């Protein structure tokens, strides 16, 4: 008797381990009174950890305004860390869709992650609201009826700056960008208008994502002696570049005309004084005087303190967009066609001012501004210097 039941015990034991792991996977079918489950995939580690944190803050800030309700259903956020790695983003999205049975997906910081999950999301027909990833292709050649972008495309944010820089900074500019989808697209968009306006590219250098030392690039800039530098960096890369730029004393001799990502308040907070005077193009500026912006800044500072930034704005708007659409269909997300119609029609009152979803490209049409780093209300942030008009992504 001893030998037999031992074998059963082990086999059962192996089975239990399997089930224990799988019991985590609930297979409940979404009913009406079930909470609306939104899978949020952002970077909570690696070079973009702070960005993920700020976007989540923006989302939660807006949810508080509507006390977590949309169309009569409670909203539940299931957060997953994409670890700034496209393969991980895909794995986590797959887990949220197949295991946690989420109704909607939101988030995605990295353009390469957006490209990686695009086909899967399209095939599974789960609406995805992109709160950050700039990749042009998501709303162009790889457009999907299920994917909407409420932030901005690389082209929209960087194209207008080209001409502006030639007029206000100078003709000879050194181009630096991160060596992945976002960096390349943004630089191409900037060059498009910059060269048309008669600008001259002194050098074009790409550096790897998440590198911890920019001294080599900075010594090249010092030697090239350009009139201006157009840098497309974000997260830690932006922080390290700006600090070493000041350490090398370049901020005395070379003008900075960079992507909005580089002069975001999360970066300025880490660098401080060294960034004063740097110019950039962005779809949000701290000093925009519209009621939505005032309300947002006041709510953010009350709840989190510190300086509000455009990542929080993007999270805030993305959630506003979702709540608006879900309200439109009274919380019934099961009818996909109706839900997609609601998303196309959704309007939001954004701290950025005028923002509207372009039904043809599923990308948000919005204003872009030129701004300069300055001390405002005792904070190191950006002040508006020019409105570059309403910019619509051409979609092709």
């Amino acid at each position: 008797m001893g030998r037999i039941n031992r074998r059963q015990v082990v086999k059962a034991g192996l089975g239990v381990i399997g089930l224990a792991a799988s019991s985590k996977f609930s297979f409940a079918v979404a009913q009406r009174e079930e909470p609306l489950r939104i899978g949020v995939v952002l970077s909570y580690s690696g070079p973009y950890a702070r960005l993920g944190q700020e976007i989540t803050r923006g989302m939660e800030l807006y949810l508080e305004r509507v006390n977590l309700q949309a169309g009569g259903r409670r909203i539940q956020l299931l957060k997953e860390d994409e670890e700034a790695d496209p393969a991980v983003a895909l794995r986590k999205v797959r887990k949220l869709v197949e295991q946690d049975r989420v109704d909607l997906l939101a988030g995605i910081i990295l353009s390469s992650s957006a490209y990686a999950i695009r086909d899967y999301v399209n095939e599974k027909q789960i609406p995805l609201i992109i709160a950050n990833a700039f990749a042009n292709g998501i709303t162009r050649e790889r457009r999907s009826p299920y994917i909407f972008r409420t932030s901005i495309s690389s082209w929209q944010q960087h194209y207008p700056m080209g001409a502006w820089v030639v007029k206000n900074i100078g003709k000879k500019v050194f181009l630096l960008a991160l060596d992945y989808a976002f960096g390349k697209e943004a630089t191409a968009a900037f060059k498009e208008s910059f060269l048309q306006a008669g600008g001259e590219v002194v050098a074009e250098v790409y550096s790897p994502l998440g590198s911890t030392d920019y001294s080599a690039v900075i010594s090249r800039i010092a030697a090239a002696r350009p009139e201006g530098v157009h840098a497309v960096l974000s997260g830690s890369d932006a922080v390290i570049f700006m600090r070493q730029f000041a350490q090398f004393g370049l901020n005395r001799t070379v003008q900075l005309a960079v992507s909005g990502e580089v002069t975001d308040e999360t970066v300025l907070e880490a660098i401080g004084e060294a960034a004063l005077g740097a110019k950039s193009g962005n779809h949000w500026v701290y000093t925009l005087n519209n009621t939505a912006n005032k309300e947002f800044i006041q709510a953010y500072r009350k709840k989190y303190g510190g300086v509000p930034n455009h990542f929080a704005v993007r999270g805030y708007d993305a959630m506003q967009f979702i709540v608006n659409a879900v309200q439109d269909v009274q919380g019934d997300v099961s009818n996909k066609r109706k839900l997609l119609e609601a998303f196309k029609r959704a309007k939001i009152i954004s701290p950025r001012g005028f923002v509207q979803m372009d039904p043809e490209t599923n990308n948000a049409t919005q204003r872009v501004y030129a701004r300069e780093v300055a001390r405002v209300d005792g904070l190191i942030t950006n002040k508006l210097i020019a409105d570059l008009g309403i910019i619509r992504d051409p979609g092709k």
Partner: protein
Amino acid sequence: MMGWLPQVVRLRKIHPGVLALRASLIGFLLLPLAFKGYFLYLATEAALLGLAAVALSFLLGHGGIPSLGQAAFLGLGGYAVGLAIREGLPLGLGLLLAPVVAGAYGILSGLFVFRTQGIFVLMLTLAFGQMVYSAAYKWTSLTGGDDGLSLSQLSVNPVFLHVGAVSALAVAISILRYLLRTPYGKTFEAIRQSEEKARSLGIAAFWHKLLAYTVAAALTGLAGGGLALHRTFVSPHDLFWLTSVVLMVMVLLGGSRGLWGGAFGAILYTFIQAWVSSFTELWGLFVGLLLIFTVLFAREGLWPILERRLGGGNAGP
């Protein structure tokens, strides 16, 4: 002719307990076919990583070769399949290319690695593995660099992929176990025990180890190819040496000798890691503690303990 040694040669009667245990291991892997979705996804991942772990277990447990560069072969296999499909080659050719490419790098790096002995082998395999990582990360035109390589345009039916993975694992284990009973395998074990003695008998230890290293590299490449199909994405991050350490943890957890341990360790690790990482992102801490525990307390791994407890003492080699 062999009558004089009756009890030596006949195929040793494997104890029923041990046989049942191994059957339940394979059974466990086929179980998820009943549940679709994420559970099946994890099981396929476990089977494929199991194949790579078995290859490492063959090297480490039987050859005494501590390799921290297996992630490179995994990656080479993945990129081989990914690029083959991107160029429109048939899937079969891609899966054939994976072990060939990985095996070739095995030979190339082995030529350097086996010029040294002992702990330097570990350091060199680690360095050569990182060479592939940095190439994959930087050679954006070929590998897509940090954006990775997506194979989404090809959809392999998950069930078919899973059965393929599990059978590949089972076939690999039986082939390698048979190999260990042939002169080639016995010599491989002999070299681990005393390379000096083996060479004094006329055995060219350098080439022998290089051949085994290449076989293991090819098997790991095949597993890498399978993973590329499974994840429909290949990213340089999987080639970082931490993946090699994870494979090492699987082998040590399961038990480095007997090859079954490697497969068991892979299953255990994959499911525990998925479970842990769902409620904390500190799974690295978990892996570290697991490694320290295994090294200090369960030196020959959990599987032999199971087999011994169940098989009434004479665990298979």
